[in-house]
């Protein structure tokens, strides 16, 4: 059975916490735990950079959840396959090795899980580190993710 790992990516600042909050809600909801037959683990990571490779080890299916900005309505959920994320232009610096760069590195090393999906949840302003958390319909986001992850893991 393919182990499933759900990784919420974020930081303690404002809306950037959203990835963590969704993981908290998924854990409390327990719907996935009860319906999936595969072993399921949850991780909340604070800007993991290249350490994301380590966090994905031994998982067959990896679900990444992160806040993102594309100009869509706040709270909108977008779903990306791994190869779509890898093609995003993101910087290589010691302080900001992003998901795209890390996934490209994982592919080059042959260490990508057999399936990886990134769910990006739209937020308004990632640049304001001191802003308070905006109102999000976390339950709605969780419902979208649960349905999708169940399909994926079947």
């Amino acid at each position: 059975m393919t182990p499933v790992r759900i990784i919420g990516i974020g930081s303690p600042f404002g809306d950037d916490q959203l990835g963590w909050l969704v993981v908290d809600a998924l854990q409390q909801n327990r719907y996935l735990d009860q319906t999936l037959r595969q072993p399921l683990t949850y991780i909340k990571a604070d800007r993991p950079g290249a350490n994301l490779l380590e966090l994905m080890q031994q998982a067959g299916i990896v679900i990444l959840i992160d806040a993102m900005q594309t100009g869509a309505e706040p709270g909108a959920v977008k779903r990306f396959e791994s190869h779509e994320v890898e093609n995003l232009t993101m910087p290589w610096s010691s302080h900001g090795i992003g998901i795209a760069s890390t996934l490209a590195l994982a592919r080059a090393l042959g260490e990508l899980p057999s399936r990886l999906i990134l769910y990006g949840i739209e937020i308004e302003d990632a640049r304001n580190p001191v802003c308070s958390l905006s109102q999000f319909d976390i339950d709605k986001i969780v419902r979208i993710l649960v349905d999708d992850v169940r399909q994926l893991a079947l």
Partner: protein
Amino acid sequence: MTESRHINIHVPVLARVEGEGALELNIRDRRIDELRLRIYEPPRLFEKFLVGRSYREVPDMVARICGICPVAYQMSAVHAIEQVFGCDPGPWVRAIRRLMYCGEWIESHSLHIHLLAAPDFLGYASAPEMARDFPREVRRGLQLQSLGNELIRLCGGRSVHPVGVCVGGFHHAPAMQEVARLREKLQAAVMDARALVEWTASLDLPDTPQRFTSVALRHEREYPMNEGRLVSDTGLDIAIDEFASHITEHQVPHSTAFHALLDGQPYLAGPLARVNLNRDRMPQSVSEIMRDIGIVFPSSNMFHSIVARAIEIYLAFIEAIRILEDYEVPASPRVSVSPCRGVGYGCTEAPRGLLWHRYELNDAGDVDKATIIPPTSQNQARIEQDLHESLQVYGLDRSDDEIRLFSEKIIRNYDPCISCSTHFLKVDIHRE
């Protein structure tokens, strides 16, 4: 014929990337007319945030300044505050602080060597491209980095912005079982760290000697991390309290980061400066590998910085294993402190170089004034000096792309704490 080219390299502001950098270069008559490394980091204001805060809050606040070298910020801060309080935390705390610093050097240097610097020397545009042809080396680098993170986690509770450090010592002492487990992992990987030194020394590094002044800490017995006097290869030998009487920061119009100068001149801080000045403080096994690789230190080739980083990773492995072998759980992981008014200084060796802190505390131990001088600010004038000399030698009649790539390589070699170290510098070229 007069030729004037204006090359403007800049990094767009991107989420989770700290700072913005650009290189402005004006060339006239095949000579550099103007060269400015622009750093316009968003203001961080940490020195002001600290004012009015209790000494107890300082270690956790300063850890937030940097995600890659939080330990350095914590160490310089606690040493400065303990100097005010007249507190000696004793040998156990001293050893575990050194252990934690080993973790940070391993983690930070491994990241820089494998993901940022090595692609430059092997002719790749990015680390993933390099990883396809050098998977073994990149995997080894990531494993070493991971062990560095584990060391920080062991001492600080977590590897990003650790929370275990306090004035007087640590909040928690690692358990013997955790120590034994990590010691075994480090022992199993120590030959990888040694092989990394050989690998970096085998890279085809440019050979362009330059004249520069190295500045680093120097300790009477050991390779410096947390303690020592400030020395240079031009005769400087001062206590860290005297830092500001020789090293002065000044503002330049083109950068929000200060430029620090030693007696009015640029200088180098960081791994190459440390190895240059402290090569006689290496443990025997590190001295042996330094002799075997055939690179003579002190080196005036700035590109030997990558070798110096690898040497320091190996040294950090040797030191960490030694400290873990001698480890005992203490009666208490910290000593009690008595707050008092005064001025204290802390200067430790962050992965990128000297990190100097000065605090003025009131009777309750609250911060009245804080000054923090990070390594990137100290190296900024040296980077400009290096670019000036290296580009002139490289040839200014080369294409804009060649000049841009070469300049990026020079800047990245210093591992600056700015997004200039990116491989995706956007280029905007104007010709007159």
